[in-house]
């Protein structure tokens, strides 16, 4: 209970800060929108059915917008010395990890929630389906789980904006592949039985990397 | 056959580059260490 309260306190702090400035949400949203526009321009001329590239466009957009969020969330924390404050607070370090992870999950999900109707309109597809929303959620959990850990790492380096995607994208590949496959399968109306192994892979990734990142985070912030 | 030759040639070339790279760096460092040791010795003698 204690643990949950403290975790939520960290999330709440980030939400309050964001509500005051609305910096992060607006920049992520505009960035995602721009990506969609650029993608639809670059594909429209050559691809006959835009629906066929939609899963790829969708997840690339989410991954790029998510990277923006991760970079900002942790580099601001370190630049302004707020992380040291958090470390001094009487709580376990893993609490900080879960707090930051949930915060990132929340902000990325919020952007995705706004983007989905826009996607539906631009690509003329119905994306608001339970199975699809579950895929988006699971994919975002995996992304945020590894992303929060690696963003903490990248924020400590020189050239942090470059560092995060270089570190993150090769590792996040299973999430991207399985999420794209699930999305395509759902859009094509394939039966669940033929997609179940992708769902299992995604859930497996989420569990493994939540556990690994939780254990490893301690070592990143010490010292 | 020429592919076989090329493959092994490249393999050995890379191995030698790697090995000699390590060896030459090791030698250079050993020399540097000698020089530093001597410099330290001299310093000690000057101080005493």
């Amino acid at each position, binding site marked *: 209970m204690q643990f949950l309260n403290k975790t939520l306190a960290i999330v709440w702090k980030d939400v309050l800060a964001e509500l005051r400035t609305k910096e992060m949400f607006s920049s992520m949203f505009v960035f995602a929108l721009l990506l969609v526009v650029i993608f639809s321009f670059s594909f429209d001329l050559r691809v006959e059915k835009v629906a066929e590239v939609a899963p790829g466009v969708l997840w690339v957009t989410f991954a790029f917008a998510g990277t923006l969020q991760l970079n900002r969330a942790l580099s601001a924390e370190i630049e302004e010395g707020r992380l040291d404050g958090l470390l001094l607070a009487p709580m376990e370090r893993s609490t900080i990890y879960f707090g930051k992870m949930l915060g990132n999950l929340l902000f990325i999900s919020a952007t995705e929630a706004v983007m989905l109707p826009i996607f539906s309109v631009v690509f003329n597809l119905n994306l608001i389906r339970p199975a699809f929303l579950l895929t988006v959620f699971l994919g975002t959990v995996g992304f945020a789980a*590894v992303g929060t*850990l*690696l963003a903490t*790492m990248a924020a*400590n*380096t*020189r*050239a942090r904006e470059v*560092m995060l995607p*270089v*570190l993150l*994208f*090769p*590792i996040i*590949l*299973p999430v991207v*592949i*399985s999420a794209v*496959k699930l999305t395509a399968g759902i859009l094509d109306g394939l039966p669940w039985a033929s997609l179940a*192994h*992708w769902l299992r*892979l995604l859930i*497996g*990734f989420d569990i*493994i*990397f939540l556990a*690994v*990142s939780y254990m*490893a985070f301690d*070592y*990143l912030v*010490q*010292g | *056959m020429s*592919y*076989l030759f*090329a*493959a*092994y040639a*490249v*393999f050995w070339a*890379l*191995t030698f580059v*790697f*090995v000699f790279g*390590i*060896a030459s*760096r*090791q030698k250079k*460092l*050993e020399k*540097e*260490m000698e020089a*530093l*040791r001597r*410099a*330290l010795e001299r*310093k000690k003698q000057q101080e005493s």
Partner: protein
Amino acid sequence: MNRDSRWGDWLNAVSGVMMIVALYLVFLYAPREATMGDVQRIFYFHVPSAWVGFFAFFVTFLAGIAYLRGGKRRWDVVGFSSAEIGVAFTAMAVITGSFWAKPTWNAWWPWQQEPRLMLVTILLLIYFAYFMLRAFLQDEEQKARFAAVYGIVAFASVPLTFLSIRWWQRLHPVVFDRGGTGLTRPMLLTFLFCLLTFTMLYFTLLLHRVRLARLVDEVEGLKKRLYSGERG
């Protein structure tokens, strides 16, 4: 230091002799493969290179765990030395593989059709990122800690990556098949010996690479003593 260098000499000699025997086996002892011809002889060096690459990354993973548990500098040295050797051998596997793929598959690097090639591509990207991370950090202790964490996380993702690439390709037509690996007895013997030789070579290189890193540390230490002496 003395015991160390004796070990080094011993390992040098053993892997050198084994390498000569391996070359003899590959080119003179192993019979010519019926369908692929002499090009198949690349296989004896190609697969062991890939194996050593993968094994080296596994050692980096283990060294990462050991470093985080004890905080001993020597585990960090083992970790990045092994990663370096891993990248070198993976690159060798890629190059020798290309020379085999060109006459056999008629393409140098058909990485989108072969799960193994794609996995190797991802592996190289991951460990380039590993070295980039090290290059962009200054503090030695922090460098070691972060690299250890990244080595662990990266290696943990490899099985999942391979699984997802495998499944992803299942929907594509299988363009390339390795064909039955119907190795005859002398071929198998040659292959196993090469595997052993390469593993030996790996440990030899690791020892020398670790020693090099230790020398760098020693020189740094001496320099510091010299300059702090000047000031004092």
